[in-house]
């Protein structure tokens, strides 16, 4: 099956704005949900805190996850996603400006599906976001959501 929502976990307002702009242009803006720190990402996924009423049987098609985030870091969010039955198969793409090799190694070791360095150049960033959206929303296949026991 194909998913419908992309969860973007991003605390930089400029980057959020750019992603929204591209998604509007390619008609996927209704498929984008943005949270601004690691704690809210977990609340969204597991239906806690501000997202206590969310239907958690509806999981996003993919999570675009920044690494340097307020409250809970991206790597910790990834660790908790992989540790929970409800989300362990969820595709996670690290979207980061980090140049540190250690971040790359740790992300893959924790089970990130992909790691994309945010291009600094505006045009390249726009193209990257387009490819990310098309690839994970339209091409990649997802496992069916797990039924509750």
């Amino acid at each position, binding site marked *: *099956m194909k998913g419908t929502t992309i969860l973007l976990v991003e605390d930089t307002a400029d980057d959020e704005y750019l992603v929204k702009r591209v998604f509007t242009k390619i008609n996927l803006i209704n498929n984008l949900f943005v949270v601004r720190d690691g704690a809210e990402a977990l609340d969204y996924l597991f239906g806690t805190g501000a997202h206590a009423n969310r239907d958690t049987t509806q999981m996003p098609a993919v999570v675009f996850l920044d690494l340097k985030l307020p409250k809970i870091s991206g790597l910790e969010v990834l660790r908790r996603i992989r540790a929970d039955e409800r989300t*362990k*198969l969820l*595709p996670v793409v690290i979207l980061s400006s980090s140049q540190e*090799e250690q971040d*790359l*190694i740790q992300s*893959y*070791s924790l*089970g990130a*599906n*992909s*790691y*994309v*360095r945010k291009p600094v150049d505006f045009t390249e960033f726009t193209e*990257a976001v387009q*490819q*990310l959206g*098309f*690839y994970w929303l339209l*091409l*990649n*296949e*997802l*496992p*069916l959501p797990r039924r509750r026991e």
Partner: protein
Amino acid sequence: MSDTSETILLVEDNPSDVALTQRALQRASIASKLVVVEDGQEALDYLFGGGMHAGRDVSQLPALILLDLKMPKVDGLEVLRRIRANKHTRRLPVIILTSSKEEQDVAAAYDLGVNSYIRKQVDFVQFDTAMKLLGAYWQGLNEPPPKVRSQ
């Protein structure tokens, strides 16, 4: 020393699917060298230097593996399992490229740590488009894991 960092390993037993994939990658101007192996056993031999690939410099790993599921000898899920179980190959980007429509295959592949799962498009044009996006994403945009250094 030859550099295989730009090599795509295609594991596919159906010759017409091999031809289709080769053509689509060429059309998409994916410059990577395509190495084709015909079943799961040969994929493992290639990666770990066994069988007919004994003596291959196994420190040279492909940048990307496109893996079919239904194959003779060793199936795709078992190949994936062994790739993830070996410290030299466990972080290699692996994409399942299959015509299987079985949901349990999709779940099993993610469970074993596949990077992405693509269903082969029956339509020619769609397949070309899919391969173009796949190539651009994994050979251009994605940052691969650093090479595991030989011990």
